[in-house]
């Protein structure tokens, strides 16, 4: 209860401090202040509701999501010190959509190498041009004042210091992508320091400046999301950080199909859900964030028969005969024909029609770090998984398998037995899905005994409990990929 009361007080503090200057918004429950207003109502004011009760409000992800999706969103809110960040659209819809003011030469060693070579020209520049931090700067909040050296020293009655620290950390040490970065939000915040050396040819002097930000890489973001969701990697082991190489070993089954960890490897026909992990060993891990209607464009492809890419008029004619029930060929030949056609049509799925967003810590956008994006963009290579990334390949394979399965189900109505016939492409995809290592889709077995850990004990980690963690593809993207 102490935590709850102090969290409420923090919120009050943040809302009450209005300076009129453009400042950064802190963690707050609802952008429209309706929760704040209800908390201030006379009936409640004497006994503010527990922040934990916010769980009864609209902050529970929809049932089709795994808890990991909520953990990722909570992590994002904590990293940016704002609930409102979860209401922003995908990064490419923000202005600016990338950090600017970067320079290429710097010194600091490989360990402090942000996004390879592009290092932000100072923390102030990051605050000004980081897509999320920039969007969160509002007229009516006062993080810079509250988080100033003087503001931090002010004793504020009832405010949980760790919760205030959380908000201020996000302001003072902005979250960005860094390979190997393990900046925490809450547990022993670890500020990465990088240095920039600049040489002035006129004075012949070298100046060294240091900058501090909270660097976070893709696998550490997943680790944090697991913690925030109270999930474990393995029922038999303590939770600790795991690299992408380790993540790619998860989802294995031992003797008798026995689960060896808390993840299931998701194969074709098992769909895709928010919270699923897309893992490429040693390369990258991203999380499915939202899944729209017809996520792979399969239904749209099937319904858009006029646009099918027939290999020949004879093929089109044959399909018409089979569908009309006038075909004279034996069932086996019919199935063979349909299987080939299904493989052909499903190879034609366009990732530009995917309605899937991902949440990950990525160097995209010049090192933005934690961000939500369309999984694929046909307009920019720096959005989502990239045109030639291994993880996009993983989604494309999954789309193809699900497409073939959908056609098998649909065409069964006019070609009995087709759904049970062997499709070589589908079998090959299933075989590749069973292969060890490589890229894979993982889903946390949240209901499995032992796979849920104790909730975080650090009160700072509960600062985002009032955030509305619900999200949808349409709200995040504006429904830009219409039928």
């Amino acid at each position, binding site marked *: 209860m102490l935590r709850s009361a102090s969290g409420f007080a923090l919120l009050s503090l943040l809302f009450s401090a209005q300076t009129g200057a453009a400042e950064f918004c802190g963690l707050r429950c609802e952008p429209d202040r309706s929760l704040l207003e209800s908390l201030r109502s006379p009936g409640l004011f004497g006994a503010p509701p527990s922040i934990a009760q916010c769980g009864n409000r609209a902050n529970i992800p929809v049932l089709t999501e795994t808890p990991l999706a909520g953990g990722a969103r909570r992590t994002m809110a904590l990293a940016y010190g704002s609930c409102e960040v979860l209401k922003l659209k995908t990064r490419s819809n923000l202005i600016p959509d990338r950090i600017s003011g970067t320079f*290429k030469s710097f010194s600091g060693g*490989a360990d402090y*190498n942000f*996004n*390879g*070579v592009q290092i932000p020209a100072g923390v102030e520049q990051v605050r000004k041009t980081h897509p999320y931090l920039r969007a969160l700067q509002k007229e009516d909040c006062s993080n810079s004042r509250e988080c100033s050296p003087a503001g931090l020293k002010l004793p504020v009655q009832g405010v949980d210091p760790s919760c205030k620290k959380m908000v201020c950390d996000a302001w003072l040490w902005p979250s960005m*992508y860094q*390979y*190997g970065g393990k900046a925490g939000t809450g547990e022993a915040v670890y500020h990465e320091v990088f240095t920039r050396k600049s040489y002035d040819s006129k004075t012949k002097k070298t100046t060294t400046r240091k900058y501090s930000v909270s660097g976070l*890489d*893709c*696998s550490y973001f997943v680790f944090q999301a697991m913690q925030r969701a109270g999930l474990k990697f393995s029922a038999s082991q303590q939770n600790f950080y795991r690299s*992408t190489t380790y993540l790619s070993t998860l989802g294995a089954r031992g003797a008798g199909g026995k689960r060896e960890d808390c993840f299931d490897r998701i194969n074709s026909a098992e769909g895709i859900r928010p919270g699923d992990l897309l893992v*490429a060993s*040693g*390369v*990258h891990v*991203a999380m499915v964030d939202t899944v729209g209607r017809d996520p792979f464009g399969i239904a749209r492809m099937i319904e858009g028969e006029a646009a099918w*890419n027939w290999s020949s008029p004879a093929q089109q004619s044959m399909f018409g005969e089979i569908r009309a029930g006038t075909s004279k060929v034996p069932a086996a030949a019919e199935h063979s024909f349909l299987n080939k056609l299904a*493989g052909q049509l499903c*190879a*034609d*799925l*366009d*990732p*530009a029609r995917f309605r899937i967003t*991902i949440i*990950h*810590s*990525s*160097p*995209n956008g010049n090192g933005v770090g934690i961000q939500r994006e369309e999984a694929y963009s*046909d307009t920019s*290579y*720096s*959005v*989502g*998984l*990239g*045109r*030639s*990334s*291994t*993880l*996009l*390949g*993983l989604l*494309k*394979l999954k789309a*193809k398998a699900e497409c073939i399965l959908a056609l098998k189900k649909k065409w069964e109505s006019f070609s009995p037995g087709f759904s049970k016939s062997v499709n*070589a*492409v589908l*079998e*090959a*995809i299933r075989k*590749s899905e069973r292969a060890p290592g*490589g*890229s894979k889709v993982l889903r946390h077995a949240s209901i499995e005994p032992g796979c849920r850990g104790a909730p975080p004990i650090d009160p700072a980690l509960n600062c985002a409990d009032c955030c509305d963690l619900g999200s949808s593809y349409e709200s995040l993207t504006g429904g830009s990929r219409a039928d």
Partner: protein
Amino acid sequence: MRIERTWMNTLAGWLALSTIPIAAGVAGPADAFDPKLCEDRHLVSQEMVEYHLAGAHWQAGVSSCLEQKNFRTILSGRQSAGDASLVTPAFIVPKGSKIKIDSENELEIGGVEVRFTFAAMRAGEKKVLHDSLIYLWNAPRIRKRDGCANIQTLPAYFAMREECLR
């Protein structure tokens, strides 16, 4: 160090070879990408290997070999923006070293597995490495936009050409 285009262009006829001349290096005209070349599986395989060795998945620096002029079947430009973690090449492929394509197997999934052999240096020691990658064909209607193919499985070794390291 940059590869001189003029020098690269003297390698006419390299397509007939079973080895790849050099670096990212199958350079053609300045704007070399041509979706019609997607039909040439061997060329796509070669370029997929070279694209990786040129540093397509390298995040710790900017390769000097990823210019579009160097690729005729791949649309370059840091396509793997989401692939974040290949930082330091474990092996360096010496300048001018050739890559041997050992086999190209069409896969039912709609892709090709390419096995290749190359010599590379690690800590001053030369090693001959055998590796493979898998790429998926892009549908013909999106090749102009996305290139001929999409990497599906990266090689096991992270090696880069010496001349591409900046």
